């Protein structure tokens, strides 16, 4: 299956990845190959097989509502490229929250 350039652009946008024109070409080729690879699964006969969403077989595993330790604000912010007054900082987004 060959992905069109428009499809690649859409996927890149959804993934929030800025791609150059050359990268778009390259990604189209690579993603198409991946899809072909995955398409091999189509050959498997899955009649009568229930869909599986979780491979552990666990069900209803939950914890009690108890408060544990959190990170200090200092540790939480340690790897941020930009901070201010205890906040992580990013480029302004204008959509009101």
């Amino acid at each position, binding site marked *: 299956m060959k992905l069109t350039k428009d499809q690649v652009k859409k996927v890149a946008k959804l993934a929030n990845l800025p791609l150059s024109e050359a990268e778009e070409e390259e990604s189209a080729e690579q993603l198409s190959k991946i899809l072909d690879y995955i398409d091999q699964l189509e050959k498997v006969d899955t009649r009568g097989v229930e869909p599986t969403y979780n491979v552990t077989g666990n069900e209803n595993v*939950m914890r009690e*509502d108890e*408060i544990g330790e959190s990170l200090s604000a200092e540790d939480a912010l340690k790897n941020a490229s930009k901070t201010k007054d205890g906040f992580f900082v990013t480029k302004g987004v204008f959509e009101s929250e």
Partner: protein
Amino acid sequence: MYKPVIGLEVHVELNTKSKMFCNCSADYFGKKPNTHTCPVCLGLPGALPFINKQAIEGCLKIGLALNCTPAEESLFERKNYFYPDLAKGFQTSQYRWPLSVKGWIDIEDKSGEKKRIRINRAHQEEDTAKLMHQLGNSKTQETSNNENITGIDFNRSGVPLVEIVTEPDFTDSSQIRDYAKKLQQIFRYLGVSNADMERGDMRLEANVSVREVGNEKWDVRTGKLPPYRVELKNINSFRFMVAAVEYEIKRQIELLEAGRDDELRQETRGWDENKKITYVQRSKEEAHDYRYFPEPDLPEFRVQSSEFRIDDIKKGMPELPWMKAERFVKELGLKISDAKILTEETELADIFEKLVKIGREKEIEPKVLANYVVNQKIDLLNKDPNQIIDDIKSKSVGIISDEEELDKVCREVIDENGGLVQFYKRSLIPSGDEIKKGNPNMLNVLIGGVMRKTQGKANAGLVRKILEKLLNG
């Protein structure tokens, strides 16, 4: 003729101690930014979520109160999108396998007319981080720093959130208010959320379109809805939501009437309170491609399983407001209007019941108490119940002790119950006192007659004396 077609989505934050998928405190309001975080709610790579049981129970309780069916099988899914309020790149939510499905709730307008709203689902998800726009860019600093930045506080990230989605059953804006108020009351009765709109505990979103009456292309009953839908979002009060919906209905009808159908689009609009208009926040087509898929890091639920004991959750449900009101009418003899007011909040209802108990010892009828509390707008939360009873006693508020008035009513009752009065008179026997004694059951029936005529406000002891004086001589 056009008719609005409106569906509502309500988000409510649960008041659990810890977050949905980690042990961080969920009490974020007014706290220092980024002090309630861990690798899970910061969305750090490799962190694994762990489901909060009490949150799931809260979500199921909400579903049960809304007459939903708990799903046989439920699981979490990833809702994928990029926005700074979501560090993982997806929100852990539910889409195809919600916890509770297919319910309904009856709302009532001011005249008491009922309308049934169908509930599509109640599902569990997590709240996002809080964004602060143009942080530190106050007016005084504007000249030195006009860079637009957004600050992110992850304290709210991962707080349990329940989303309740209705079918498009609302046909006017007042129903939205009635519904939202009813949900708020249910959340508070269940004790699962404070449901404070201003704090953002409870948020409303409305999907509004209008259809032409008789246009069979768009018919709610056949599931054929208008081909567009305007989503009203980020509105933090009941009043503004009602105003926004009203404006939107008007705007859409005007466009349809002018033949400008093509300007009606799938889009998200907000409410500008100053200008009293709705405005476009984003057009929907490109924004909504969430590519949901099952969350592989979280196990599935079998809601009807033994671990869950859904029957225990059902048994643990409190008496809901409309049930309480009905009981007040049936057992305490209150007027339905008083019963509704007294059951608006669960705390008030509890205090009133305490009051009834004390009142009983002092021979004050629940109905008299209810009348007094409602009419005098007594602040039950801040007044000692004993004091209220004493006030009623001393002022005899609402109780008729006027002998002349009661004498008149007693005579009416005697006239209306000729047969009974004759039997009563025959039952009189000399008691040694001046006044003879008659059959007490028959006398009680007559006292009851006086009570009915005075809506239970007559001073019962006095009525007895007057009747005996009139009949026993």
